[in-house]
């Protein structure tokens, strides 16, 4: 099925949706779990193969599921164009948090990255830019020293080379295990974004699932253009924290990309299959030159 057709189908199904149904088929269906994907939004269960074919978008409710950094990279940048920055940078244990190093080591092995973000330079349909991709599989992409430093360096490099920045955000927030040092990364990254902006740089944020906490309250919210994937979670405070404060159930679409757009904090909601094209169009209209033939 062609990509455009696929998304038409997904789009058509947007309308009828989202009663939360308890999944009862765990007993009935005897299929190994890794063959199946269960949508965390609508509990729809489909074959993994079908799910991957749909770019990891739930065909029933349109939820754009979390990608690994590699999947995101492959969907976004021109083949072979990515040159990674600071590949070897890894975390230390600034406040001596119990078992933090062990956790980092284990995750590095499991997820195949040193920390929760990849940064680098690439072209997107021929347009050169600095890119950052956060990966929620690594400690819910929380921001500690490494994430903060990589982002600051990426923006400083972009400022120096007069390049635009495209940042795919996903995060549970600041990384508690690094204590106050993690909070300071919010100031550090926001400062680097501000200097890039003051120098006339273009910054496109793409909010993916989930963009929350200290990342929402810093560089993620500072894009000149803020895009979001459909149905993803975006917010400052955790849903549970708010529910505990107000002691009532929140509506299902609270803190969704669509909710945020309605409140005025997201420029455009863009489906995954169209994202690459959208980004390149935004780069183009800002007058950046196209290199080579692109794709």
């Amino acid at each position, binding site marked *: 099925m062609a990509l455009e057709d696929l998304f038409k189908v997904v789009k058509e199904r947007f309308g009828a949706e989202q009663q939360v149904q308890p999944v009862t088929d765990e007993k009935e269906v005897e299929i190994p779990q890794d063959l199946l994907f269960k949508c965390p939004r609508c509990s729809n269960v489909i074959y993994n193969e079908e799910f991957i074919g749909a770019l990891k978008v739930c065909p029933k409710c349109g939820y754009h599921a979390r990608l690994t950094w590699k999947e995101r990279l492959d969907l976004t940048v021109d083949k072979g164009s990515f040159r990674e920055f600071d590949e070897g940078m890894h975390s230390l244990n600034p406040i001596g948090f119990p078992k933090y190093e062990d956790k980092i080591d284990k995750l590095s092995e499991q997820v195949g990255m040193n920390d929760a973000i990849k940064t680098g330079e690439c072209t997107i349909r021929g347009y050169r830019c600095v890119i950052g991709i956060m990966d929620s599989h690594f400690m819910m992409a929380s921001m500690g020293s490494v994430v903060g430093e990589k982002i600051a360096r990426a923006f400083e490099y972009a400022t120096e080379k007069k390049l635009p920045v495209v940042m795919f955000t996903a995060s549970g927030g600041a990384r508690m295990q690094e204590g106050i040092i993690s*909070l300071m*990364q919010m*100031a550090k990254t926001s*400062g680097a974004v501000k200097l890039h902006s003051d120098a006339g740089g273009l910054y496109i944020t793409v909010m993916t699932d989930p963009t929350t906490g200290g990342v929402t*309250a810093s560089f993620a919210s500072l894009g000149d253009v803020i895009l979001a994937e459909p149905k993803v979670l975006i917010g400052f405070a*955790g849903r549970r924290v708010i529910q505990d404060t107000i002691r009532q159930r929140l509506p299902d679409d609270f803190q969704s990309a669509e909710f945020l757009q309605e*409140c005025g904090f997201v420029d455009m909601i863009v489906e995954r299959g169209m994202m690459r094209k959208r980004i390149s169009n935004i780069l183009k209209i800002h007058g950046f030159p196209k290199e080579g033939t692109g794709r």
Partner: protein
Amino acid sequence: MSKLTACERLEIIRHKDRPTVNDYIPAMFTRFMEFHGDRLYGDDAAIIGGIGYLSETPVTVIAQVKGRNLDENKKSNFSMPHPEGYRKALRLAKQAEKFHRPVICLVDTPGAFCGIEAEKRGQGEAIAKNLAEFMTLRTPVISVVLGEGGSGGALALAVCDELAMLENALYSVISPRGAASILWKDGTREKEACEVLKITAENLSDFGVCDKIIPEPEGGAHLSKEIMADNIYEYLVDAVYRLNKMDIDTLLQQRYHKFRKIGMFAE
């Protein structure tokens, strides 16, 4: 200065008679005039803002309001600001920049408010905007953590040239209770979390986050509001004098570098 644990300090800053900005502002600034509103949505009583004199120097004051009793706390929402509070702070900071007034931020909050309305009006965006704008604000900014420095809600008033903390003040990325409930699924173990998180003024000085520890009267600020106010006042007069003398571009470079250098990693 006394050697207390983070936990003992937590007890002190939670003391019911701990002085608040309602004590400090009249004691430290003369002819203070309060200015209201963010010009966008409303006025948030969790943050007081205005202008007055520090000694002879006109300054802008932006302060988070812990109540001294339940009524005051209801009014100031227990010092948990909404987005309009942070936007008021930014408006007044920009005004200070325009008229070359130093900005003094008094930080005392458990955190930014977590609720439906706060989310709707963009709590995240409001804080982010402050972090970015204060970083390049072309006038000296001094922040003093008076008691509780609660995460992003405190940081939104603490992107500054100098960060001072009262001796017993705590400044943390997450409340000890919150950390305990994540770490051990048990919020009552906040005392343990308190020590693990390294949140005292001394800890933060070691990390290069806190630039100056302001001594409290023996036993805590509540034992002598006058001495406490004097100590803060003395520091502020000195800091404003020093920072006001500096070339503004040098000051801004230093401010950026102050935050830019914080982080611990290997490559």
